[in-house]
């Protein structure tokens, strides 16, 4: 664990990519094979099953630190990370464990089936036999939420340097459904085995947001326009009579969407489609909210399938007749996709084609974008007709041009300390809008919370205001003299019985601090309601 914790500490304490990649390359050159496999697994979000739930972790950690549970909870709330809180609160002891990463992971997997008393004893012993950083990493492994400031891409780069295999090939090897408990480093990385690739998706090509006016992209006729649908980006793979469905987060989600078994023996083997999973009922695309009833459900009931059926809206074709065609120009791939679609469109499959447009002018593109909200799309995608299908987020050939958010001016009424990186500042805000009362006067009614959108300097100024204008304290929350007005942006809006204001907003965030506005000039709940289509 010592070496792995030291690695994580280096990754965690530098903000320079080169330093991180170098440290990881160095680690890969010296670590044992089982440790390497687990390191790859952990840095690509594969983790051992969680042996202990967090309620028990909190209880046992507070016992060992000899503090009441509520005090542990308060600390956790401020630190913002459970493993970090535990690492901070439990004192170091003299004894030190020399077990390796893979030994620890092995123990954790075995721990899952043990009794509660055994689990407690195991944690109490091991927490004390590790130093601060090791304890942090150890607990991260237990909680299973292992996210560290290093993307899978950089991990792949470091691995590539260490083993001398091309990054794209490695990215391909690392995708899919391999089990770090069973696979060896030799098999996972070093061996060349074609049958392993059966279920493997291609790395997704992701777009950046457009940086200036679309006119600057040049001749509109070089570009293909389509809507950016608001569902789950996915890859559908049909190989050797099987369907595999992957989400953009590289999660195999085939079982959650049994609808797509209908593709077997209809779509030809050796086909990979890039598309969007969307809720679709009565000839209309639903909202992301509808889709959420399907995400995260492990068992899919008949009733659910009837209530929220899904389809795939196809964007692109990545593999055709068993051949990787990602290097072919987009327009060629689309041509093949459209031919494929035409051949099966009357068979009632849950498959649609995402319509694409050839526009004559950027004005026409702008007009199409205006229809996005009505069509339940997030905006437009602009794809260069000659573009290959690249790996990861790349600039140049694909751009997303999303809708401008809806905006409203609201008053800051409550504040809470941030967590983690903002633990010493009040950065979590609640905002209110005006509502008429029966007696003709007006009151401020809460409508949304937002955490992001200000610069660090602005956060510090608002934090200073909050500390000096606190009206009341409710645990971590403070009510604040209403005086500051902020422009709040959000993506969507719907009526809601769960919210005091009667309205739920999607992705609310602070767009800017309206220092030019007095609170009387903030908007009203009615004005917000008027935005609902």
């Amino acid at each position, binding site marked *: 664990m010592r070496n792995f914790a030291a690695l994580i500490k280096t990754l*965690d*304490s*530098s*903000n*320079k990519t080169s330093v991180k990649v170098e440290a990881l390359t160095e680690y890969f050159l010296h670590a044992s094979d089982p440790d390497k496999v687990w390191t790859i697994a952990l840095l690509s979000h594969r983790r051992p099953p969680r042996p202990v739930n967090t309620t028990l972790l909190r209880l046992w950690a507070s016992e060992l*630190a000899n*503090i*009441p549970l*509520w*005090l*542990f909870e*308060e*600390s956790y709330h*401020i*630190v*913002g*990370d459970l493993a*970090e*809180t535990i690492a*901070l*609160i439990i*004192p170091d002891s003299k004894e030190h464990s020399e077990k390796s990463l893979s030994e620890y992971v092995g123990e954790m997997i075995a721990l899952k089936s043990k009794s509660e008393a055994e689990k407690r004893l195991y944690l109490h012993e091991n927490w004390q036999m590790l130093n601060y950083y090791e304890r942090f990493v150890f607990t991260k492994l237990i909680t299973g939420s292992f996210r560290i*400031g290093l993307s899978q891409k950089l991990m792949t780069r470091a691995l590539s340097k260490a083993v001398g295999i091309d990054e794209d090939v490695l990215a391909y090897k690392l995708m899919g459904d391999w089990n770090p408990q069973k696979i060896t480093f030799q098999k996972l990385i070093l061996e060349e085995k074609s049958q392993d690739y059966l279920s493997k998706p291609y790395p997704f090509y992701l777009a950046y947001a457009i940086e200036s006016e679309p006119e600057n992209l040049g001749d509109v006729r070089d570009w293909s326009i389509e809507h950016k649908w608001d569902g789950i980006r996915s890859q559908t793979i049909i190989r050797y009579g099987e369907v595999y469905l992957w989400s953009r987060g590289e999660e195999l989600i085939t079982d959650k969407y049994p609808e797509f078994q209908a593709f077997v023996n209809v779509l030809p083997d050796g086909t990979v489609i890039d598309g969007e999973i969307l809720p679709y009922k009565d000839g209309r695309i639903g909202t992301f909210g509808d889709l959420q009833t399907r995400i995260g459900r492990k068992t899919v009931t008949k009733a659910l399938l009837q209530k929220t059926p899904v389809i795939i809206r196809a964007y692109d074709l990545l593999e055709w007749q068993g051949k990787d065609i990602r290097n072919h120009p987009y327009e060629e791939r689309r041509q093949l996709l459209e031919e494929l679609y035409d051949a099966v469109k009357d068979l009632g499959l849950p498959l649609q084609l995402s319509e694409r447009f050839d526009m004559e002018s950027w004005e026409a593109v702008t007009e199409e974008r205006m229809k996005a909200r009505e069509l339940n799309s997030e905006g437009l995608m602009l794809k260069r007709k000659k573009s290959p299908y690249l790996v990861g987020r790349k600039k140049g050939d694909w751009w997303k041009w999303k809708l401008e958010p809806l905006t409203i001016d609201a008053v800051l009424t409550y504040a809470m300390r941030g*967590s*983690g*990186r*903002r*633990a*010493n500042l009040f950065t979590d805000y609640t905002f209110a809008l005006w509502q008429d009362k029966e007696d003709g006067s007006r009151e401020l009614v809460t409508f949304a919370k937002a955490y992001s959108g200000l610069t*660090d300097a602005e956060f*510090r100024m608002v934090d200073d205001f909050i*500390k*000096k204008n*606190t009206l009341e*304290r409710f*645990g*971590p929350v403070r009510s604040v003299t209403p005086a500051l007005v902020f422009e709040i942006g959000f993506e969507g809006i719907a009526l809601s019985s769960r919210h005091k204001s009667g309205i739920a907003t999607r992705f609310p965030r602070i767009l800017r601090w309206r220092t030019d506005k007095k609170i009387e000039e903030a908007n009203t709940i009615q004005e917000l309601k008027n935005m609902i289509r």
Partner: protein
Amino acid sequence: MKNKLLVFNDKGIYCAQADVYLDPWRPVKNAIITHGHSDHARFGHRYYITHHYNIPILKHRLGDIVVTGKEWGETFTINGVTFSLHPAGHIIGSSQVRVEYKGEVWVFTGDYKTEDDGISTPYEAIRCHTLITENTFGLPAFRWLPQAEVMQDINTWWAQNKAEGRTSVLFGYTLGKAQRLLKYLDSDIGPIYTHGAVENMTEVLRTIVDFPPTIRITQETKKEAFPGSMVLAPPSAHGTVWIRKMTPYVTAAASGWMAFRGARRRRAIDKGFVLSDHCDWQGLLESVKATGAERIICTHGYSDIFSAYLRELGYDAVTENTQYEGDEEEISVGDEKDAEKKEEL
């Protein structure tokens, strides 16, 4: 309850019997000042009373003020109320204020730490009935390592950067932390350069404490001089044009907040050293106990949590709002901005 000896009003902590404020945040007639940080020592009071170590600091920051200096433990009586200053160990000159009237004793800690840093006069627990304490780091998640260990880490970091041909830029606030770091930097490793704001304050304090030699960074300082050296700068210098001259450089900050991984990341610095001029959790609990106080008033920091815990331990503990910040990094010292501007020209 009868009239309280000290009350919290909109100007500061007030003793009505003596008509004296402790660390007031609005202009008043009589002000006892615990230490030189800007959230405690403000402009505009008519008469200042403080430990005599603080006088050069206050004059440097506030200009020409009317100020009386006191010794540690020297008592002075105003309208029957007896005051005295006692070391708080936070920074040079930092004091606790002991207030006694008709046998009742209150102590205001100001900002304080229990570890002896070798520069500030070490903290002493003062017996009292009511203790007014800060709680900047009043969470069990804060647990400081001994200063010697942290300073060894810092010197090791410096030596390693030097071996790689880089400049070590270390951020610590201008009054207090910068000098504490300076005192224990190993000047055998290389030269120590200072940002103008740090140098100005250090000059003021050299009359009280011995520090290793420093070199003020000016427009004339050559770029070639930096690799391998240590640069002490205020946190506000991070990300400014000023720092580019030190390329290739590595940055670090020294503060209690560095205990949190997130705090290190937010500041986009390469390394965080956990070194605070405030008490950690144990330090706060031990000093509360050592004063023998039954009633505890918690001021700035995690005061709600700390006072709730004290109540659980059986103390009569409450929280009062003040305008003290105690945020180790965000403390501004008057001339920092000006000095920065000058350096950037």
